[in-house]
């Protein structure tokens, strides 16, 4: 499958003054969006007493799971539903297993502590929601910063009998176009190159002629407040667009529109100024941050190159719970060898690819040329 970089918009809300997310990514990497269900820390894995093959050996499971009179000690989490005081209690079953492991194999292993802590925290996690993930260079208006990827927890809630989902695939679109559209004063449309030189032209183009044709037709009406209008602006805009553009042309016009161009230029300017280096930030929208939040991250793979180690996986020093969520996600990569990747490798892969077709510090012009190149689907 051919790899292509595209401009991608993630629509947060239909109203233009709200936050926006726009970026450049290779959607063929996940064939669209990466979806992952967190790998469960299912504690049934650790109830081994029932299986005779797993008993009587020399492994540490014996020592922990069997008491002297050959009876299994069951590790049960406290019934937290009944007692609010226990609701946030830690599930110690995992901890005691591993604590014994360390004693039996002689000496403490301080380097394991972190993983075990994660394990025990992870095992008390009962929410298992789907996550959507798009790695790439995205600009996030609410935080005025670029990020290395977008991670959205797909949560469902019901209110007044309506199911509200925090994420819809329709909200994500890539612009597979090679030409924009401009509208001249007489209302004639013309295809134009998507290039910096022509930007000014269609910046004014569409909105201006639309405004003119509408304001001239509306001079008779005294408009003082929205109440008088009752949807009339929007329906007039829709009627104008319907007479002027087919759906394909509408998509070109959308990209050529001043608002999207403005957003795109912010992104391109950021890349031109700061280069294609990881930003060590990820935009996360989850149960904890339903309005979205930018978290600081570290990539162990990059860190360990300096320390000659072999660690990997994402780190999120300031938000341990987000790190735990992210570490449990694994996505099916659909390009190259097609293996499962975690968030960290996906982000680093995408950076590597973008830099291989652009460079470390591409200009706006080079980026535009690439994301709007022709003949790709």
């Amino acid at each position, binding site marked *: 499958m051919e790899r292509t970089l595209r401009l991608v918009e993630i629509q947060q809300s239909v109203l233009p*003054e709200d936050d926006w997310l726009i970026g450049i990514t290779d959607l063929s990497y996940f064939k669209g969006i990466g979806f992952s269900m967190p790998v469960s820390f299912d504690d049934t894995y650790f109830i081994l007493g029932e299986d005779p093959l797993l008993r009587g050996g020399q492994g540490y499971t014996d020592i922990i799971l069997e008491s002297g009179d050959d009876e299994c000690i069951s590790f049960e989490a406290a019934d937290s539903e009944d007692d609010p005081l226990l609701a946030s209690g830690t599930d110690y079953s995992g901890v005691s297993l591993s604590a014994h492991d360390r004693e039996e194999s002689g000496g403490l292993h301080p380097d394991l502590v972190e993983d075990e802590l994660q394990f025990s925290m992870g095992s008390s996690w009962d929410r298992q929601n789907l996550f959507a993930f798009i790695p790439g260079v995205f600009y996030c208006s609410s935080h005025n910063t670029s990020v290395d990827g977008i991670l959205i927890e797909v949560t469902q809630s019901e209110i007044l009998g309506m199911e509200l989902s925090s994420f819809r695939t329709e909200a994500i679109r890539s612009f597979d176009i090679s030409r924009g559209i401009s509208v001249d004063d007489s209302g004639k449309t013309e295809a134009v190159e998507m290039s910096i030189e022509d930007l000014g032209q269609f910046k004014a183009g569409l909105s201006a002629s639309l405004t003119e044709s*509408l304001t001239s037709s509306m001079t008779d009406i005294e408009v003082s407040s929205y109440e008088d209008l009752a949807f009339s602006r929007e329906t007039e805009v829709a009627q104008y667009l319907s007479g002027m553009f087919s759906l394909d042309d509408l998509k070109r016009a959308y990209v050529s529109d001043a608002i999207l161009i403005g957003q795109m230029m912010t992104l391109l300017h950021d890349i031109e100024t700061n280069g294609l280096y990881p930003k060590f930030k990820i935009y996360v929208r989850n149960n904890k941050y339903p309005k979205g939040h930018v978290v600081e991250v570290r990539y162990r793979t990059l860190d360990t190159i300096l320390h000659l180690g072999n660690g990997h996986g994402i780190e999120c020093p300031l938000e341990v719970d987000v790190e735990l969520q992210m570490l449990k996600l694994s996505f099916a990569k659909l390009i190259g060898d097609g293996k499962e990747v975690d968030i960290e490798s996906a982000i680093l892969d995408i950076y590597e690819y973008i830099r291989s077709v652009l460079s470390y510090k591409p200009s706006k012009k080079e980026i535009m040329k690439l994301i709007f190149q022709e003949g790709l689907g």
Partner: protein
Amino acid sequence: MSVSPEITFRTTLSNLRTNLRASPDILNDPDILLTLLKPVFISIVEIIQKNASVLDESIDEFTESLCFETSFRILESIEKHDLLIDLPQVARFVANESSVLYSITGVVDVLDTEHRTKRIAAAFLGALFYLLTCKTS
């Protein structure tokens, strides 16, 4: 006695669907189409306003979802549901252009929170109108 917006919504929606199915020619007459479409979206706004206190922070999200679902049912009734994927983008486009128009024509007070529900519903109404009437190339 006034009729609750929920009932208005249900009757206007089924009226629209029946009409669209019975005479597809309506799609060629923007005025008739709009007279059928508008009451559906106006009643959506009324439903939201009536339940504003319950919806609280989810108000925008709820409005978008309700408009989306409603648009789906309308498109579905004339077997054009494959256009649904383009609905958010067209709605955004309509909202973009309308917001430019609002500021140019001096109606700036609509850009506050009070009118968000109306503007969201209106954007979906516009988008749906476009999708029902646009030329397919």
